[in-house]
């Protein structure tokens, strides 16, 4: 089964590598979000230094700024806060729209030629997940690099190192894989691209907006906050922020990190199972 999954994944990635322009839309999206959206907003600029002509005491202003900063998880600027959210956005959208290739494979009859071959249905499904997983994670890595390279861009806390990077990779790996399974299963279940786009738009955007990807939880109304707190995108984003802003983690932060990772792993396993069951049904003889 693994050999079949690998062969099919390799087929798709080979095509991708031969067409480097294919990553441009994803990359542009990352640059626009970070450079234009991210640069245009700095929460600290909202703090007034005077009200009605009366100057506020600098100590008070600093205190308000620091309180506001903690709402943003201690990020040095908005881009530092936003990067984790944009990476979430990028991986979710890539997994969601990556399914279009799968729908086209069905329409062109390619899927039938796989179905009449002596390979397990699971390998057909998981190769569909893996091909988009690799693409999404690659674009996520590029997004991260863009964030670092931007003027006044992403700023690491002291002590940020390879382990922090590994932690970020694992958190997004789990998020991408889990939702990838769900979206890929949907792609196997629909008959045309329009239906897929309708479904994934309906799922992906609320999922992103009902999380702390773009704005901090502290600004949410309570009903939305309750949803956002259990949203895996929030977990992956918060974990990443913690690892970026604080180079070295305190024991409390480490246990929070472990809790988030376990949460993301459980969600990934659950979504993979649901996804596989949906796909198995969709891949049955018509």
């Amino acid at each position: 089964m693994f050999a079949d999954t690998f062969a099919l994944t390799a087929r798709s990635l080979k095509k991708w590598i031969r067409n480097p322009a294919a990553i441009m839309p994803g990359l542009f999206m990352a640059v626009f979000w970070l450079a234009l959206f991210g640069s245009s907003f700095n929460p600290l600029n909202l703090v007034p230094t005077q009200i009605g002509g009366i100057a506020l005491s600098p100590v008070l202003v600093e205190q308000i700024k620091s309180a506001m900063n903690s709402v943003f998880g201690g990020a040095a600027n908005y881009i530092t806060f936003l990067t984790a959210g944009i990476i979430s956005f990028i991986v979710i959208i890539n997994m969601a729209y990556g399914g279009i290739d799968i729908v086209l494979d069905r329409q062109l009859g390619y899927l039938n030629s796989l179905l009449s071959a002596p390979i397990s249905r699971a390998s057909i499904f998981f190769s569909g997940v893996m091909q988009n997983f690799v693409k999404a994670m690659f674009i996520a890595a590029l997004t991260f690099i863009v964030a670092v390279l931007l003027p006044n861009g992403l700023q690491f806390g002291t002590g940020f190192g390879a382990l922090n990077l590994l932690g970020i990779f694992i958190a997004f790996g789990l998020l991408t894989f889990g939702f990838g399974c769900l979206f890929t299963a949907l792609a196997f279940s629909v008959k045309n691209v329009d239906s897929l786009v309708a479904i994934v738009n309906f799922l992906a955007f609320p999922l992103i907006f009902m999380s702390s990807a773009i704005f901090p939880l502290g600004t949410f109304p309570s009903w939305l906050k309750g949803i956002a707190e259990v949203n895996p995108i929030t977990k992956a984003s918060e974990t990443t922020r913690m690892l970026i802003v604080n180079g070295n983690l305190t024991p409390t932060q480490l246990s929070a990190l472990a809790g988030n990772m376990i949460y993301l792993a459980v969600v990934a396993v659950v979504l993979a199972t649901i996804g596989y069951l949906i796909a198995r049904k969709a891949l049955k003889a018509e």
Partner: protein
Amino acid sequence: MKTNIIEAKNLTKTYKKTVKAVDHISFSVEEGELFGFIGPNGAGKTTTIKMLTTLASLTEGEASVVGYDVGKNPADVRKNIGVVPQEFTADDELKGAENLFLSAKLHHVPNDAVRKKAKELLELLELEDAAQRQVKTYSGGMRRRLQLAMGLIHEPKILFLDEPTLGLDIQTRQKMWTYIRELNHERGITVFMTTHYLEEADSLCDRISIIDAGTIKASGSPPQLKEKLGGPILTLRLIDGVDLTDLLREIQDVSEVAKKGQSYQIKLAKPELAIPQIIEVVTKRGLKISDITLVKPTLDQVFLQITGDMMRDGSANGDWFGQRVLIERLK
């Protein structure tokens, strides 16, 4: 005695309880046979192939391929069959050889055997020069040949060809026939093919079934089916004279005579015996023949007689297209 490599009993496929694509058909194919399903578009040919290749479930009936039940042991069926679909399913972005190797991997051909087998197939199908080119540069004929190679790389016992020459020009089509014949005759691969080109079925198949509107209307070898129409027809035109109808009817090997003006349409049971006698009858009376032609029955005539005069191929008067769209929607 040869064994049946395909056995289908009351094969039925109904989509969403309303559209009967295939309606209780039974047939068998012997090992080593080149068997054809012919019929107009939308007759149920592709649906039959889909059921036999495990892509579609059976609503009713049963079928076994290479001794395995298609519903109960689909995995075993898949191991033993090669499928060349109607659509171009080779990957455009990949090279010909890459497509072939991928197909080999998916059919678990051992690595050390792949190169040799691929080389041999590329040679046989005259694709060696194109193997390292992307498929998007291929012509229609080359794509069909590549797909044939992809369907053969794992040395299947039986090859399913769905409209193998659809959209090909005459020369390319005949070339394809040569390959198919060679695979069947020289290598002993059983072939189950569908086509709506009658001359293709006539020239290639050992045995055919004519299918229309989901049911089999006739089966047999092409000569047998033509025989059913009655023998060849001799048209004889005389330069005036007496009526010979009764005299001609008396000839033993003539089965029917019809007269129209000075023309006689004579259906012959055994032309080699009947023709000399007819000539004798005519010349004995000193009559002169102004025109004589012998027409052998063609598969086209058989087909038209069986399926009615409506050839739904590419014309707007049939509803095969509607039927196909409907099935696509119901799936």
